[in-house]
């Protein structure tokens, strides 16, 4: 294990034998969403593995897919990843704070561009795709909801078929 100049070893170090860098983060500073956001940015050029070595710690193990630049490249990856983590953590916070404004603008932008659906669009729309729970039976017809129970024998047969 080699420490990275300027970064305390308990925060980040490189493992040159395994050609990887390891960052340990304080979980109270970085929400898991930020960890995902930052890690995802790197999966095109690195292999990324997440762990939680202790309840208040998050760990990112990052292995460049091609390590031509040796230790300097690992150091560069750690620096970029650390920046991306800060950015993702802050973005997560901003998105929550400005959620209503962001949603309103996005909705207006997309609906303004799409316009109302035509009859052809509605005809093609696949309503079966959106499965949802309906505990109150709102989507059921009155016949389905209030129909008398059918013959118990028939019910059993139907259940058997399902099974």
């Amino acid at each position, binding site marked *: 294990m080699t420490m990275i100049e300027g970064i305390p070893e308990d925060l980040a170090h490189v493992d040159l034998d395994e050609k990887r860098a390891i960052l340990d983060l304080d979980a109270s500073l970085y929400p898991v969403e930020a960890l995902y956001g930052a890690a*995802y*940015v*790197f999966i*095109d*050029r690195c292999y990324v593995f997440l762990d939680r070595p202790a309840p208040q710690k998050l760990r990112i193990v990052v292995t460049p897919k091609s390590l031509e630049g040796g230790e300097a490249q690992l150091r560069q990856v750690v620096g970029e990843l650390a*920046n*991306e983590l*800060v*950015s993702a953590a*802050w*973005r997560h916070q*901003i*998105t929550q704070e*400005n959620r209503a*404004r*962001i949603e309103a*603008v*996005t909705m*207006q*932008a*997309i609906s*303004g*561009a*799409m*316009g109302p*659906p035509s009859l052809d*669009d509605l005809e093609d729309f696949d309503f079966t795709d959106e499965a949802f729970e309906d505990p109150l039976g709102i989507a059921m017809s009155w016949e389905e909801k209030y129909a008398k129970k059918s013959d118990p024998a028939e019910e059993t047969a139907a259940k058997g078929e399902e099974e």
Partner: protein
Amino acid sequence: MQLLDLRGQLDRTSQAFFRFRRLGPERTLITNAEGRWLILSDADFAAYATGAVVEGSELYRRLSDGNFLRATWDEAKARDMIAARKQFLGYGPNLHVMVVTLRCNETCVYCHASRADMDATHTDMTPEIAEKAVDLAFMSTSPSITIEFQGGEPLVRYDLVKHIIEYAKAKNETAGKTVEFTMVSNLSLMDDEKLDYLLEHKVQMCTSIDGPKDLHDKQRILPTLSAYDAASSWIEKINRAYVDRGLDPSLYHVEALVTTTKGALGRAEEIVDTYAALGCRALFLRPIDPFGFASKTAKMVEYPRADYLRFYAEATDYILELNRQGTQMIERYAAIFLTKILRGEDPNFLDLRSPAGAGISMLAYSYDGDVYTCDEGRMLAAQGDQTFRIGNVFESSYRDLVGHPTVRAMVIASNLDSQPDCVDCTYNPYCGIQTTHNHKTQGSIFGRMRESNVCAVHKGIQDYLFGKLADGEPHVLEAFERWTTVRAREHFLHDGAGSADGDP
């Protein structure tokens, strides 16, 4: 820069929402959510920040007029201005880029991915694809659409350009939209017959002039003649043709773009003089972008953004000086920002607004029928990155395209209210980010603005402009006023059903 030490004195109750940026000694810029702004002296800013502004004072009046005080904050005033700035949100794609071929007769140092050799006929768009693309463009919810011919070199497929114009105009007989045509061309394949047709059909022409002849010809190579001579002779001829048709040359002229490479830095005045001599009234001093070339080329043409900003200031200072001497020229980047800053309007430049226009205000149709959120998206695709491909003209409906998850993600990512740094930036009301640039340079469409070249350029240009506004030199303010006066180029508009626009 000397800092103001206001620790322990700050008041948090008297100000309405504001952001601030120190521009220099005795100059602190404040802006609010709706984009009103003031430049305050150190004493005034200290009084504002500490809640010591005396009611009835001149400063109180300025702050109140600008909607910066909680006591007099006018919600309707803020709401109306924000709505005016976001007017573009109500409509779908206005700009439809049609890549009629990738073939190009010029070889440019900064353009590899978006061109093909002249024998690569397989990179030509077919008439069927072109018609499908026009059909999709006409489905836009926007009442006006611009069809922009691009390449490659679009004049290589002049026949297809004609076909698209005629198909679109016929279609517009029933669609009733306002249609514009523009063509981005190096002009070297132009001839009198083509020019007559393009002028008759009111096609706006846009070309590239990278600077004086030696620089232009070094960066843009034509096999048998000087690329500069080819472009400049046609620019002069086209501009003369506009005058002959009785059109105001300050409004109707060939638009030309500068691609600022390393070779252009240090030659700001020569570049401006070249444009002035050609009768070009507008320059767009764009920094080089990373989309068209391979990374090995970057070393040859790229440069630190601080160098670009020095070049930008030098060139724009010189343009302002020419204006003072009576030669009317504008710098487009400045005009876009200043229209937002001084007029409270958004000129709808798609890369400089929040959210950006990719997918919701523009679509790019590649020669093979694939559709992208923007032109940069199809350039990345040419390098093997299909991130911004959102469909194909034969497979996708209009609503599939503009409602595509990639478009939605780009809308969210380019909303400055969702971006670290931008959310607190004083320039938030006037700025915009490019998700394709973020993706290409930083690996995610969100990017990290503090490390972004685009952010550095946007901040630097706005620092320059607000510095000029703070200086308040009359000839500069007068030029800025002129640069932000938007005059519609009505000659280029084709109206559809029920109108009499006198088209041939």
